[in-house]
């Protein structure tokens, strides 16, 4: 009864095509933003920051990126870890070359650099498709990790091969480095995710998004209605890599602070988990990217609480269980709901519309 669309009429095509066509959705979203921007910053502590909110925001960003490429443009990529590494190392190098540059600009620049790298590794996508392309992206993953590992210039010849962030401020408050207060890192990531999230949604609902989906659903037909395949695929690679690069940049500069490339951006550490997020969340759904990220951040915490603290298993055994459960969830989701949590959400909304009188 409460959640209904009766009586809401659209008189222009603009309003019919808005992101939240229903007034209830709009209100809910605005409330969420209100809480996120005005209430959470006052209560956030470093556990919520480091264990939940920051990883959630960063994974959401990466998931949006991969969803653009895989969910909307249909090009499966297993190279997310590699592209995130590019973002992280770009940030590190820019920081050393330009000590005075604003951190926001550094992060965005890192995204742009990753976008160019993405275009480079997207080039084979014209000739090769499907599984062959998935394997090719795996190649880019291995190559990039190897490169950052073997060429000392990238980690400024440090003995450990580690890269470490230096402190940067915005409006006088540190957002990177050890002294950054939780609310600052949180707000920094939140602003980027919200702004770029909207940008992604806008692209998806206009020309470029429709070109991606046309290529995804049937590339031959797309070509015949005049969608240039190479340009469209490369634009998806570029924009997807931009988002993933920013995620990598934040992962390094804001979240970890110091990292070593093989450990942090391994295929098992990043590429597969992000792929999980968009499958469990929903391929080709913006909401799905966020739901998937939330899921992947919260499930391990939940499992650890249950298995280690409650049942008393050893950490190693719990880890094995976790892997098993990830795999099971993935298979079960693909069997029961290939469109992921986002579809479940919309089914729930559909039910809610008719509630409490379903007929």
């Amino acid at each position, binding site marked *: 009864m409460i959640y209904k669309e009766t009586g809401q009429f659209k008189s222009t095509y603009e309003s019919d095509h808005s992101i939240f066509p229903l007034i209830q959705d709009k209100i809910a979203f605005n409330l969420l933003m209100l809480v996120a921007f005005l209430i959470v910053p006052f209560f956030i502590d470093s556990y919520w920051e480091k264990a939940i909110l920051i990883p959630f925001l960063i994974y959401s960003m990466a998931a949006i990126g991969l969803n653009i490429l895989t969910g909307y443009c249909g090009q499966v990529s297993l190279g997310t870890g590699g592209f995130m590494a590019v973002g992280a190392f770009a940030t590190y190098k820019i920081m050393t070359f330009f000590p005075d540059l604003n951190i926001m600009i550094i992060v965005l620049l890192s995204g742009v650099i990753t976008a160019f790298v993405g275009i480079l590794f997207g080039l084979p996508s014209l000739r090769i498709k499907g599984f062959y392309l998935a394997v090719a992206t795996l190649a880019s993953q291995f190559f990039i990790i190897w490169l950052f590992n073997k060429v000392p210039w990238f980690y400024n010849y440090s003995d450990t091969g580690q890269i470490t962030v230096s402190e940067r401020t915005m409006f006088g408050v540190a957002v990177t480095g050890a002294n950054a207060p939780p609310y600052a890192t949180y707000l920094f990531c939140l602003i980027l995710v919200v702004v770029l999230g909207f940008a992604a949604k806008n692209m998806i609902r206009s020309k470029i998004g429709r070109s991606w989906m046309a290529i995804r659903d049937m590339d031959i037909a797309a070509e015949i*209605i005049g969608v240039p395949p190479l340009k469209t695929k490369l634009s998806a690679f570029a924009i997807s890599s931009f988002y993933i690069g920013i995620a990598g940049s934040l992962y390094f500069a804001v979240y970890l602070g110091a990292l070593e490339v093989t450990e942090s951006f391994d295929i098992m550490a990043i590429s597969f988990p992000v792929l999980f997020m968009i499958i469990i969340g929903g391929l080709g759904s913006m909401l799905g990217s966020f739901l998937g990220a939330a899921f992947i951040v919260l499930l391990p915490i939940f499992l650890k609480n249950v298995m280690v603290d409650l049942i008393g298993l050893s950490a190693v055994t719990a880890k094995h269980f976790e892997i098993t459960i990830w795999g099971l969830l993935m298979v079960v989701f693909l069997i029961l709901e290939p469109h992921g949590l986002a579809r479940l959400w919309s089914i729930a909304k559909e039910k809610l519309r008719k509630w409490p009188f379903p007929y």
Partner: protein
Amino acid sequence: MSLAKIQSIPYGKEVIKIKNISLAFGGVKALTDVSFEVKKGEVFAIIGPNGAGKSSMLNVINGFYKPTSGQINFAGEDRKEMIPEFAAKSGIARTFQNIALFKGMSTLDNLMTGRLLKQKQNFLMQALYFGPVQKEEAYHRDKVERVIDFLDLQAIRRTPVGSLPYGLQKRVELGRALAMEPEILLLDEPMAGMNVEEKQDMSRFVLTANDEFKTTIVLIEHDMSVVMDISDRIVVLDYGKKIGEGNPSEILKNKAVIDAYLGVAD
């Protein structure tokens, strides 16, 4: 720009001239030395038994196949082959024998893809989505809504096309082609697998598009009664060769055509 060139050609004059086109896949000859002309504003039918090379002919016209030899004169210019993107930009739209819709997208979005070539805003503007982009979206939405009205697709505007029945999918595909506001429309068996009422509807849509929007139509169809009813001129292919050309009454009397369809009496 060849779109302008096509538009400048007067009605009744040749817009596509197929000159001695041959097409082979390895050793298999799909088309052998085929020539014909399509005049602007007419309904032109390509008929022939299964495997005669009709679909291959359409694929050559919109550049999906590259002919082995011969030339295509398009809007007054001789060229060795067409390129799909160029064909689309020059105002050639087509539908497919086995429906080629974007199955994950709604009817509305499928039709909107027909407008992609006409949308000019760059991706940064699209990401910001204000002013000009919004206006452009609304403008094209309006165009698409007209096609939706014309083809009676209002009820399925938001339905993913993958879940639509066959006849409706065919209609959506025609809609996508019409949304491109094409000068030339290539239809590959638009009425295959339809019942009589659906065929009548489809014929009406095709004729209206031809009448009102002055779209040149090149059509492949197996149902002879439909072909004889709606086409101005017909070319007949058999085993990749042209065996007849003319208006419906001439074709009905053509000895070679009758032999090809009914078999030669021994």
